[in-house]
């Protein structure tokens, strides 16, 4: 198989630095069309995936770790991937799962620190954001992990309810109710914060 071969013996990938848009997952499969190699996916999708991850875990170092793990997992499963075009979806799923584990580990670690409220890491990154954005991001961090995932996938990744359901492994109905509860919670938090001004 072309893909397997190109994986095994990588020709030096052309140095054209693919942007996120460069490796697009096309829906229609042209048999002559070259399938993306893992290298191309890495070059093309890494930044987009890190951005997705940082919306879920707050700090860049953790986001990069999560994404590296996702690519490593993709590599391990590459030969089993029915359709390399589906790799982006697979990657996104691993990033979301990885981010969730990261948050869980962080919570566990926090439990050992005497005063419970450690500030969010990455607080300095937030300093460059406009105040109105900062409030939203802070409110987002207060959501339950699942709610946050749904919001990020919907409003940043622009996924449909069906795609979000597949990515998170939950039903569309759950996506809908989770999103609506998350929006309510955000609205409440934000109106409390920026309300009387």
């Amino acid at each position, binding site marked *: 198989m072309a893909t397997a071969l190109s994986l095994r013996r990588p020709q030096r990938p052309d140095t054209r630095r693919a942007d996120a848009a460069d490796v697009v997952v096309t829906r229609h499969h042209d048999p002559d069309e070259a399938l993306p190699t*893992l290298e191309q996916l890495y070059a093309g999708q890494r930044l987009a995936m890190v951005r997705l991850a940082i919306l879920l875990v707050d700090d860049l170092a953790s986001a990069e770790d999560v994404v590296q793990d996702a690519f490593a997992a993709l590599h391990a499963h590459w030969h089993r991937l029915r359709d390399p075009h589906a790799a982006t979806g697979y990657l996104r799923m691993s990033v979301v799962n990885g981010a969730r584990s990261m948050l869980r580990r962080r919570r566990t*670690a926090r439990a050992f620190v005497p005063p419970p*409220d450690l500030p969010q890491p990455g607080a300095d990154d937030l300093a460059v954001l406009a105040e109105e954005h900062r409030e939203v991001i802070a409110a987002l961090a207060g959501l339950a992990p699942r709610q946050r995932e749904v919001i990020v996938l919907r409003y940043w990744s622009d996924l449909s309810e069906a795609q979000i359901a597949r990515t998170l492994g939950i039903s569309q109905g759950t996506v809908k109710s989770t999103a609506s509860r998350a929006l309510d919670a955000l609205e409440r938090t934000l109106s409390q914060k920026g309300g009387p001004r």
Partner: protein
Amino acid sequence: MSDDLEDRLRRALAARAEVVSSSDLRPAAPPPAPHRSRGPFLVTGLALAAAAAAAGVFVLGGGWSPGGGTTVAVPAGWTATGTSGTTGATPDAADGGSPTSPTTSAAPSPTVTLCSASAVSVFVLPDTDTRRHGGGMNHQGATIGLTNTGAMPCRLTGYPGVALRQGTTMESEDPNTRGSTSYAQDPGPSTVVLPVGGSAYAEVSWTSADGVRPATSVDTLQVILPDQRTVLTAPLTSVLGGDRTLTVTALTPIPLPLNGSGG
């Protein structure tokens, strides 16, 4: 109303995500792979880098050694776990004001260089509702952040030198007291690796009560990196009194939890 919120969400998420650009990412180049048991070099590299990133990070009280000698496995991040007083470097290895030996023997890795003052910027972490200084007893304090603005990860060990000025007039007295402040416990000196764009933090506190002299207002925080002499500044408005000295904790990879700041 909800449309409004959705729109606001989209804009905030985009703004937050786009703070990260390709140049912020760790180098994609994999380490030279000595064994090629499976897969191409890139992917082996990925796995190694991922493992290294997941396992090795941050507060290295003295002996993180990168074993295999790869160069990409620079600890490029940290997790919130290891801040509890891991020590290793001797206290005198990190002298805020006086430039003694520029490196310590507790250097974590030869590939991570000492942060240079020209590639570090200082900021004061704003207080929030849940994490704040003040709260009576004339205690004042601030959380200082030192951000690596260079192109490579770098490291800092020990205590920064801190001072408060009004304009160019130095109002605080040397030397700093090193240890726990009115708000935070000093975990002791350790080496903090700052990823590109990452920050190290220290707590500073002082009193605003009249002391030997009437208290005075200050508008500038001055910071000197451990083992260096270049002065960095950030705006900080407060009142300084008492004996005019400052207490400072060692640098940590995350802001220290504050105690008794409920007020």
